[in-house]
């Protein structure tokens, strides 16, 4: 065994010396070494070097890239793309936004649009077996709610990042990884053993309920997450025609899933889904909001890296998935970040520049900008003519800004929203990425409506679900064209309706049959096959 490599690390909260396992032959990277040392970085693209999530600053020493390149300090390096050269006094600085240890902004709140009875899905024996779990497995965050089945009340909630994130950021990256021998098991263990098990133990301990009293669980999640939960090979969903191995409701047991805290025979119900990219999370939301009963045309929209859209019209349920990419989670943007402590959540231009910034509390200083802040910027930047319809920063408006707010590189411009802080920089390249994400969502909505012969004005309610929706300034989402052509009164922000639906299905046994009916009745619209999609996408690249 070679000697461990000792390096100095400047963390956001202080410096330390770290002993890294020596690596020479097994191809491990600095990101792997830091993870093994208990300080995982944000390797959200799955260590492909495609994102800037694990970027650290090389303060002293040399970095050997996997591609044979060598970098000498000072340099910005992607920790997943190589290792530090041996040598004394090697020092790196890790910015807050590159750490994977941030606590997620958890969405456990949801609005329920339908009445429900307390008549649980699973048998209840008061005092013995009388609690249940409502679970939402998101690609990014996982929430477990402990429900008292006698009252139907949620008594305890815990959430954390889905530990699969360390293996790959988006669903397709994980689908691909699952095709590598043994990795399906690694992914399954990441969700079952390393994410759900501690959360379940946590809610039981927190509420002082013995796990033996768990009587059943319901699980909502996208189709890929439910495949990985059950150890089912998802690889056919990665390529056209995107076939799922199962979509139907399934009743399993805790033992089947591999959960050891609850009683082995505890029933676990996986809620039904519609297609590979419109999953049980949407079906749960559909019933939770009452969309499936809406008499007037209504929409359910969940915006994440993928945008899922359901349209209820004249008793027909149309479903589609559009792909936004990671921009709204801060991916590929110069100062983008997820909604973590220290992120700018909102930007308010009260007439003039510079704008007021609202931070998510819990950190010292600003770590970057999150999706909702960028949407604010698009809407208001356009309103004050700082942005042109093409998304370019107006040269004349830019010239009038105080020099400290101006940024330029070659001939592209940028704007520092806060003069003192470079973590508030928005560049024209960022705007171009955001416009593509915005256009994919907007074109998805408009194309689906067009299929039904409808326009945004015809919609009674657009239920906006999911964590991003909860943080979004709805007026700005409309003004930027993300929710194109709607009026604020039409939008109802409903929160985590996937969790809401799982909870409803657990406490009221008439709900699951409704979900099954909705999932089988839904008609899937493939946007690629819609003739007008490309044109609509290009139209919506512009700012209104």
């Amino acid at each position, binding site marked *: 065994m070679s000697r461990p490599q000792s390096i100095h690390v400047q963390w956001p909260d202080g410096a330390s010396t770290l002993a890294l396992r020596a690596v020479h032959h097994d191809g491990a990277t600095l990101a792997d070494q830091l993870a093994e040392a208990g300080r995982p970085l944000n390797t959200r693209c799955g260590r492909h070097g495609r994102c800037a999530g694990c970027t650290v600053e090389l303060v002293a020493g040399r970095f050997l890239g996997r591609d044979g390149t060598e970098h000498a300090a000072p340099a910005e390096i992607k920790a997943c793309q190589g290792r530090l050269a041996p040598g004394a006094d090697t020092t790196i600085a890790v910015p807050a936004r590159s750490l994977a240890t941030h606590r997620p902004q958890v969405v456990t709140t949801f609005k329920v649009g339908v009445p429900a009875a307390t008549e649980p899905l699973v048998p209840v024996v008061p005092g013995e077996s009388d609690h249940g779990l409502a679970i939402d497995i998101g690609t990014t965050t996982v929430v477990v709610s402990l429900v008292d089945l006698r009252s139907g009340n949620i008594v305890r909630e815990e959430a954390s990042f889905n530990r699969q994130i360390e293996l790959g950021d988006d669903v*397709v990256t994980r689908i691909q990884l699952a095709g590598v021998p043994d990795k399906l098991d690694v992914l399954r263990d990441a969700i079952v053993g390393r994410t759900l098990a501690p959360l379940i133990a946590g809610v039981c301990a927190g509420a002082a309920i013995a796990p033996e009293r768990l009587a059943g669980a319901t699980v909502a999640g996208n189709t890929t997450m439910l495949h990985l939960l059950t150890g089912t090979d998802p690889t056919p969903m990665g*390529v*056209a025609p995107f076939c799922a191995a199962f979509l139907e409701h399934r009743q399993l047991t805790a033992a089947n899933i591999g959960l050891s805290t609850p009683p082995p025979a505890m029933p676990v119900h996986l809620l039904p889904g519609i297609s590979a990219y419109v999953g049980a999370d949407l079906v749960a939301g559909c019933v939770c909001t009452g969309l499936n009963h809406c008499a007037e045309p209504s929409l359910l929209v969940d915006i994440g890296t993928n945008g899922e859209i359901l349209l209820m019209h004249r008793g027909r349920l149309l479903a589609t998935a559009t792909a936004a990419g990671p921009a709204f989670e801060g991916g590929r943007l110069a100062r983008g970040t997820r909604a973590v402590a220290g992120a700018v959540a909102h930007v308010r231009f009260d007439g003039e520049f510079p704008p007021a910034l609202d931070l998510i509390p819990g950190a010292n200083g600003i770590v970057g900008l999150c999706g909702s802040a960028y949407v604010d910027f698009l809407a208001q930047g356009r309103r004050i003519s700082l942005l042109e319809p*093409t998304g370019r920063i107006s040269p004349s408006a830019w010239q009038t800004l105080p020099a400290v707010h101006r940024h330029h590189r*070659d001939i592209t411009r940028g704007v520092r929203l806060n003069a003192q802080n470079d973590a508030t920089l928005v560049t024209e*390249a960022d705007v171009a990425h955001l416009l593509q994400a915005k256009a994919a969502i907007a074109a998805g909505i408009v194309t689906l409506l067009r299929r039904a012969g409808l326009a945004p004005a015809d919609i009674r309610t657009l239920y906006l679900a999911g964590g991003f929706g909860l943080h979004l300034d709805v007026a700005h989402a409309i003004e930027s064209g993300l929710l194109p052509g709607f009026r604020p009164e039409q939008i109802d922000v409903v929160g985590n309706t996937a969790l809401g639906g799982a909870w409803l299905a657990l406490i009221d046994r008439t709900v699951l049959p409704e979900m099954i009916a909705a999932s089988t009745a839904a008609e899937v619209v493939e946007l690629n096959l819609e003739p007008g999609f490309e*044109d609509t996408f290009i139209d919506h690249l*512009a700012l209104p």
Partner: protein
Amino acid sequence: MTTLEQLSQAVAAGKSKDAKALTQRALDEGVKPGRLVDEALVPAMAAVGERFKNNEIFVPEMLVAARAMKEAMNLLEPRLLAAGITPKYTALIGTVQGDLHDIGKNLVAVMWRGANFRVVDLGTNVPPAKFVAAINEHRPQLIGLSALLTTTMPAMVETVRTIRASGCPAVKIMVGGAPISQQFAEEIGADGYASDAGSAVDRARELVGAI
């Protein structure tokens, strides 16, 4: 300003309606379709590509310009064909099997047309055998493969392998798409890679020996 100059500007600025109207007007004024392509469209797309490379414009503006170019080409193509005008070089392009993304591929196709290539577009979800059949049919100098999903990168590998093993006429293979890199292109034995539609033109011309 002449009609051709106006047309060139309308295309570069992405004004689809104007591009269409001006193309019609130029034709009405008796401008030959071949001259229209050479003196208005080719320079317009060259300018767009150049501005993109210099970071003066980004993908959204380029897509809008490409759409304007397409409007003009729709009017011209039947006339060019009738006049027997075919560009010197032919390129095939398609999205590999398992992938249905085509906006980026379409943009590359338009830019290649704008650089005076005849472009045969095989569409999306194209199996390797269909590429081979099309090579035998159209005898292109260049072939472009697009993949937007990390999960369809293996299909790209397979397509390059099949083309090379097929014994069809020699052809240069270029690959591209968001998850593709220069390194990947080299690993799978492609002849060229471009990260965007602007550099795709330069690389294509290099590969066929046009420059």
